[in-house]
């Protein structure tokens, strides 16, 4: 894929999420007091109220919580069909990230499918995409 999709701006709120792929890491903000993960990031922990949060690398593994196979050409940068998914990360039951599911036949994607992260680089930004766990 040579075309560039719409990309995030790197800001102090979330740059760790978009650049962790340079080190091969998916990084999620986590409370250092109660250890709850906070995504999308918030300045205070929504679980305990602490303001002591920092990004931590997670396993990059999860399961498909839901998905949609998009057939309509809406972006010049993305060939259709493509699969948008919400992945529930293994670390916490409510830790959901939207992503694109790749290296899989769209018709084979299912809710509950185990997946793992891989990164698609666009200069400084590394988009965390997910693919089925290698058997």
């Amino acid at each position, binding site marked *: 894929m040579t075309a560039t*999709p719409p990309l995030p701006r790197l800001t102090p709120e979330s740059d760790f999420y978009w650049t962790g792929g340079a080190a091969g890491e998916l990084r999620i903000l986590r409370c250092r007091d109660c250890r709850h993960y906070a995504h*999308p990031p918030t300045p205070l922990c929504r679980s305990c109220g602490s303001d002591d949060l920092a990004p931590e690398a997670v396993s990059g593994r999860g399961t498909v919580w*839901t998905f949609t196979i998009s057939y*309509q050409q809406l972006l010049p940068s993305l060939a259709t069909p493509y699969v*948008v998914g919400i992945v529930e990360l293994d670390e916490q039951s*409510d830790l959901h990230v939207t992503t694109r599911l790749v290296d899989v036949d769209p018709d084979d994607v299912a809710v509950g499918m185990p997946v793992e992260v891989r990164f698609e680089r666009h200069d400084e930004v590394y*988009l965390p995409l997910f693919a089925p766990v290698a058997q």
Partner: protein
Amino acid sequence: MTAKYEDRVVISGVGRSDIGRRLGRSELDLAVQASRDAIRDSGLSPADIDGIIAWPGETPAPSGFTGPAALRVSDALALGPLTYHGAWTEGASQLAGLMAACHAVASGAARHVLVFRSTCEASGQGGGGRSSAHPVDTGGITGHLQWLRPFGAVSAAHWMALMGTRYVHDYGLRPEQLGWVAVNARAHAGLTPYAVYRDPITIDDYLASRIITSPFRLYDCDVPADAAIAFVISAAETAPDLPNPVGVEAIGAAFDGRPYWDQFRHSTDMAAHAAARHLWSRTDLTLDDVDVANLYDGFSFITLCWLEALGFCGPGEAGSYVEGRHNIRLGAKIPLNTGGGQLSGGRVHAHSLLYESCLQVRGECAERQVPGAEVALTSAGAGPLGGTLLVTKAR
């Protein structure tokens, strides 16, 4: 029921512009046409209007989406001075501006507030098929869209389809159930002279239509339109002197959950439920009293969510409820989306649904009139935002 603020307001006038796919007119022009129509309908004169509200106001958005700022419409109508004006870029659903008008009038901050929604989304999407270019892409995406757009989740269709797939997983909803929402809307649009698409479709037409993003087919998605709808909200004490007042029995509003489209815990986890609980807590009326319902149908799946949230059926039962149209057609106990909804009538972001509810309790719906309709239910929004209103025939 103790006194509530809704008792202090009426919807004194309703208005609409021409509605079509590509009218070649500006959003301001359409807003002014609908607003003049609403003011004329209310029996007031422009000089009586002392407040104006736009939804959503001028914000960065895809071409044709926002419509003009409230003050541009005020300027065009030569209104003023105004004691209250604003735009509701945030709020409990697309009817948040209308709710704010009710709050303003009930509080005494204004006496007659004009509310409008104007859009040229059909023209904005151009002749070359749908485009999803968004101004936020320039310079890098910030805010909630950064979590969606880089992955191709660029349309509300994607965001709701994600919820739809999970609902199918949880409850076994079948396409031949979901499709009846669209078939029903089209049947009623055939009786609505200003609906965008009026030729009937069958469930087989629905099943044969192309998939936009699974599980949504073309007919599950509402129709971008060039259109404007306007209302005048007036102090209740002025109603005896006005020709067409409609009562506001109750307003339910909710922001619930996190302000994202991918952080739901369950497939029925939408603010519609909290908004519905709020609505029913503010009235002695129940669903048994409702004569007609115009529920949000930006996507047909959203209508199923509202049917469950408002108590038409239990969680996971909405597919069975709509199947075959027996419960939702004109002639049923509570006909659904009698003006064709947004699926066939055109997307005016719930304002057209409330417009239809008002006309029904006024008895002005001709061929599609629900006989004796006195109570109409309307809903708006999806995801973390929900708004719902009960309007009544003036007593």
